[in-house]
């Protein structure tokens, strides 16, 4: 690939944002910023897979990636720090679609992933050394994980059996991803015969970029976690115990509980000593995340239909444009609610 993986990932975001967000919004999605704005952006523009998957991203790295796209005429800088893909850019992105890590689900797994990996790699290392009859220094220093793994192995009894189960499950899971992804994942593992490789070492070995390797690795982890959650990887499911992600942020969860008890927005704001706008953020988050949550109590059907029609006609999700089109008769809150609910039904 000529343009670097950062450019590829950025191009993907630019396509989704369609010129409606600045580069900083891309930055917030990758770094997993827990603001109402970023959470909504991730939903509306269907960037959930990438949410929180590149924690140490820098604005400088994104700017460089954007420059590379512009230089190759794959993107244009419309306004300051806002970019859109050119026709050539669209084509280029389609051509390389296979490079997108298709199992990635940062929205759901970015928080659970580090602990899941720590457990998995430490169990792998421990079983390997038990099988080989060697002493070892654990490859993880996190006390929580050390304790957890110790308890887990004690509860499991036969090490040989467990090693066999782990082997079978890993082989089955890795067969479902690409050969390259399986190789990357395996090289990251530490055993009795080999300390795991760093991302950079794997990248050098495969002659790929470290960033690409990192995303491929994460892709495998997210796939394993998803398989665990649907019940197709029993051992991985055990490793996920206690890590299964919450759908809502904690604060929104509380608001949701009050709503279900029949409290009004005003009452909740009062009880929780929060600003009304914060409660509004929560309700938008709930609407976007809880299937079956009705927005009818907050926006009447006629208005909702008008907002939907305006958004479709204008082919935009810019709140301001929609509001102007409706002569300011609807509030931003109402527009955000309708759009949050509409996610997935139409895409550009």
């Amino acid at each position, binding site marked *: 690939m000529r343009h670097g993986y950062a450019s590829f990932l950025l191009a993907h975001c630019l396509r989704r944002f369609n010129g409606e967000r600045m580069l900083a919004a891309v930055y917030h999605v990758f770094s997993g910023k827990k603001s109402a704005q970023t959470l909504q952006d991730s939903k509306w523009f269907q960037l959930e897979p990438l949410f929180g998957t590149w924690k140490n991203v820098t604005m400088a790295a994104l700017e460089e990636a954007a420059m590379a796209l512009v230089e190759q005429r794959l993107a244009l800088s419309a306004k300051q720090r806002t970019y859109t893909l050119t026709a050539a850019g669209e084509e280029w992105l389609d051509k390389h679609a296979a490079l997108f890590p298709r199992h990635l689900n940062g929205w759901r797994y970015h928080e659970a992933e580090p602990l899941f990996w720590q457990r998995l790699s430490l169990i792998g290392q421990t079983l*390997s050394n038990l099988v080989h009859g060697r002493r070892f220094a654990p490859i*993880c220093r996190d006390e929580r994980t050390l304790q957890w793994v110790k308890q887990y192995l004690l509860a499991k009894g036969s090490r040989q059996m467990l090693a066999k189960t782990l082997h079978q499950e890993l*082989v089955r899971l890795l067969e479902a991803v690409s050969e390259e992804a399986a190789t990357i994942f395996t*090289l990251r593992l*530490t055993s009795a015969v080999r300390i795991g490789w760093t991302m*950079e070492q794997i990248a050098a070995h495969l002659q790929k970029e470290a960033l690409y390797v990192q995303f491929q690795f994460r892709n495998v982890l997210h796939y394993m976690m998803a398989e665990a959650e649907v019940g197709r990887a029993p051992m991985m499911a055990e490793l996920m115990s206690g890590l299964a992600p919450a759908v809502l942020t904690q604060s929104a969860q509380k608001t949701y509980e009050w709503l279900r008890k029949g409290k009004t927005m005003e009452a909740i704001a009062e009880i929780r000593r929060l600003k009304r706008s914060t409660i509004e953020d929560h309700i938008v988050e709930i609407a976007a995340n809880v299937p079956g949550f009705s927005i009818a109590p907050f926006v009447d059907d006629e208005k909702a239909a008008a907002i939907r029609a305006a958004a479709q006609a204008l082919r935009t999700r810019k709140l301001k444009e929609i509001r102007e089109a409706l002569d300011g008769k609807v509030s931003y809150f109402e527009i955000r609610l309708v759009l949050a609910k509409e996610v997935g039904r139409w895409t550009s």
Partner: protein
Amino acid sequence: MDELTKTLYRRFGHASFRPGQREVVEDVLAGRDVLAMLPTGSGKSLCYQLPAYLLQGSVLIVSPLVSLMEDQVEQLRRRGEKRVIAFHSLLDAEEKWQALASLAEFRFIYASPEMLQSAKFLTALRRVCISLFVVDEAHCISQWGYDFRPDFLKLGEIRRALGAPPCLALTATAPPEVQEDIIRTLGMDGARRHIHSVDRPNIALCVEHCSSTEDKAARLVDYAKRLEGPGIIYFSSRQWAEETARRLDQCGAGRVAYYHAGMDGEQRLLVQQQFLYGQLDIVCCTSAFGMGVNKENVRFVLHFHMPTQLEAYVQEIGRAGRDGAPSLAVLFYADGDRAMVQAVAEAELLSPRELHNWCQRLPQGAGWEAAMAALEAPGFTDIQKRLLAYFLEREQREMPGWLTAEAKGRLYGRMAAAIEARRRWKRKKLQEMDEWVNLSSCRRQALVRAFGEELTGRRDVCCDRCGLSLDGYGRAVHRPEAAPVRHWREELWDMLFGEGRTNEAAK
């Protein structure tokens, strides 16, 4: 076999003591305060770990580095010791709240100096019978330690608060004035001193004077390619460490990786373990690498930039040749290095102007908490914050009350003076280092003199000034290739079923 040796064998599996250990252990068991300066890699930790099995109660070990603490806890656990616990942050305290209630059950209690500032933790400790108060890397206690750790300066008070149990201060490198500081701060006036020479006879010393940075880089690469590994190369900047690692890798110098504090914890641990297990030949690193890396057979330590002082240099080259076999330390030097290293060393110090602006912005008439809070303003590095917080606390004790305009002016004056004193001291240390580099007489002699010793007798192999041939340090003609990576199925099979068995599934 006497009782002590029996315990040594039973608990640690050693048939005899290493030089220096026995004397320290005996003094500790006799309940004396002890200052022990033993070279790194000489088994310093045994000096308190063995007594812990013979004394009643618990041993408290204060250690400056989380990674160091983790390594020691790990080693003890591997030997089957269950009664060991480590506290390194307030976060732990929450998690280990239950453990605090039953602290007396632990034989080894490790704690960072920051943890000891917690009143909750200290209260729990006071209910424990502490039979020995150990301070590891005790040179940090000195205000003039090269790694400024203000929380170390308060350890004397803490020891008193715990009923002044016998104290063992351990260090690898402490010149006489720092030794005095340690004894004074910890209040161990009648302490027995066991000072072992900083000289490591099996490490040959060499300085390469180069004409430019490019020349330096070229010669360093040349050395790294020719010398028998494994080896460590120190840099004062992350970029240089990374770039040189790549360069060495490309020119076939072997299996090379870099290591610095900018990497995430997992990648750092991987590199450290790879080096330990012989998967790497060379590590290009900053001074962040080395503490807790107990590798016996390091054959060379190179310095692309000189350290900021001789103490650091002695520590870093001391990671070579712990097995006693001939090893080599080479420092590369070019004009301009001194200025560069000085800039790195003084990065922790605010300029008078920055300090003045900061003081000016403090809210007039507020309390001292406001000044402490203002440290959290963005722009300060961690070490700058640590330094300023330390000075602030000191000033607060001296002049309690409110931050009036006058108090602010005085605060600025005193803090500026303190920073200036530290700057002068740093320059003096760098000057010392620089003089050593540009020495025309024996380097070994000068090195031990800096630590208040005299060299007795002549070494067969000494330094470039005494005449040094590098022939003995070259690479063996044949070096075994790195094990090739196999298909992931076979790798997984080897991992979980052991080598040597055929993998039916992969056929």
